[in-house]
C-alpha cells in the first residue's frame, strides 16, 4: 500500500504536479536525514546533503524504474552522494564485496565468563550515546549498513538492492558492523 502510494505520487509528479513531490519530500525527509546525518556527522552538511538527494531525485525522476521500491531508489541516490563525498574528502572506504581483514571476517563470540555484558554496564540513554560515538568510529560502509538496519529499519533485501550485492554478503556485513559496534562499546567501558 505504502509502495503504491509512492508510485502514484511519482506518476503525479511526472505529470507536473509539484504538490505530489512535496508530499514525497515530507514523507522521506526524516528517515533520510537520520541516515545522512549519521553518515556525514555535521548537521548543516547533513541538511544540505539531504536537500541534494531530493533535488537529484526530482531531476532524474524519469529514470526511476517502478519495479524497484521508491524508498530504496532514494537511499541509493543518497548513498552514491555520500560515497562521492568520501572520495572527494579522501576518507578511507572499501567495497563491501571485498573481505576485510581475515580476523574481522570471521565473527566469533567474545564474552568472557563471569563478566557482565557491555549493555548491562550502562543505562539505556547512556548506551545510546555510546552507540552514536561508536558509530562515528565505524568504517563508513559498515556504518551505513548499521544505520539502515537499526535506524531506518530496512530489510536485508532492500539493502542488497540498494548496494547491488548478494543478500548473504549484506547480511554478513551487517552482523560484522554489529559486532564492531559491540567491540567499540567494550573498549569504551
Amino acid at each position: 500500500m505504502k509502495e503504491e502510494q509512492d508510485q502514484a505520487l511519482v506518476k503525479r509528479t511526472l505529470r507536473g504536479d509539484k504538490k505530489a513531490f512535496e508530499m514525497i519530500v515530507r514523507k522521506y525527509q526524516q528517515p533520510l536525514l537520520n541516515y545522512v546525518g549519521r553518515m556525514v556527522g555535521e548537521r548543516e552538511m547533513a541538511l544540505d546533503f539531504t536537500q541534494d538527494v531530493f533535488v537529484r531525485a526530482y531531476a532524474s525522476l524519469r529514470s526511476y524504474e517502478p519495479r524497484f521500491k521508491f524508498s530504496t531508489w532514494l537511499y541509493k541516490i543518497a548513498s552514491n552522494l555520500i560515497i562521492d563525498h568520501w572520495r572527494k574528502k579522501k576518507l578511507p572506504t572499501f567495497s563491501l564485496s571485498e573481505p576485510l581483514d581475515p580476523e574481522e571476517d570471521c565473527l566469533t563470540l567474545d564474552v568472557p565468563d563471569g563478566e557482565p555484558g557491555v549493555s548491562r554496564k550502562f543505562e539505556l540513554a547512556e548506551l545510546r550515546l555510546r552507540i552514536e560515538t561508536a558509530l562515528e568510529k565505524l568504517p563508513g560502509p559498515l556504518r551505513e549498513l548499521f544505520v539502515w538496519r537499526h535506524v531506518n529499519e530496512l530489510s536485508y533485501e532492500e539493502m542488497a538492492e540498494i548496494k547491488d550485492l548478494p543478500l548473504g554478503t549484506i547480511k554478513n556485513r551487517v552482523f560484522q558492523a554489529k559486532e564492531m559496534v559491540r567491540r567499540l562499546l567494550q573498549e569504551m567501558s
Partner: protein
Amino acid sequence: MKCSKINDIYDYIEGSLAPERTQELERHLGTCPSCRRAVEDRRLVAGAASGLPPFAVPEDFTDQVMARIAPLKIKPPVWLIILAFASAWLAVASVILLASGKSVLGIISGASHSLWEYVKGAAVFTAKAATLLTLAGKTLRPLAEACYKGFSALTSIIDPGFQALILVLALGLVVSLFFGMRKKLSLGE
C-alpha cells in the same frame, strides 16, 4: 560456540532463524550461561540502537527543497504526439489543395507523374554512367598492365634486401608526411 554460530545468534535475535536451528540453539543456551549472556547482550545493544534519537528536521526544510527544484518538462504521451503530427499534416495538405485549386485526385496523379519522370531520368543517368565506366576501364587497362610489367622488371633487378630498405623508407616518408599534414591542417587530437 563456533565461528559460524554468531550468524545464528543474530538470526535468532531477529526471529529469522529456522525453527529446528532455533530449538537447537535454545537447548544450547539452556546449558551455556556464557552464550546466554552473549545473546542477551546483543539483544540489548540492538534494542538500544533501534531507538536512536531522530535528527531534528527544520520546519522550512520542505519549502527549501521545493524552492531548489526546477519545474519538470512535461513529456506529452505518444498518442498525443501522433495526433498532433496527423493534424498538422492534414492542415498543410488542405492549404495546398485550396491554394492549387485542384482536386485531391488531380494532385495525386500529378505527383505520380512527377515521380515517374524522376525514375525515367535516373534510369538514363545510370545507363550513361555505366557506359562511361566501361570506356574508362578499356582505356586504363593497358596503362595498368604496363605499370605492373615495369614494376615486376624493376623488382627482379633490385636486391630483396634493398627492396625492404626502400619500403621502410617509403613507409617512414608516408608517416612523417601524414603527421606533418595533420599539424598543418590542425586536425589535432
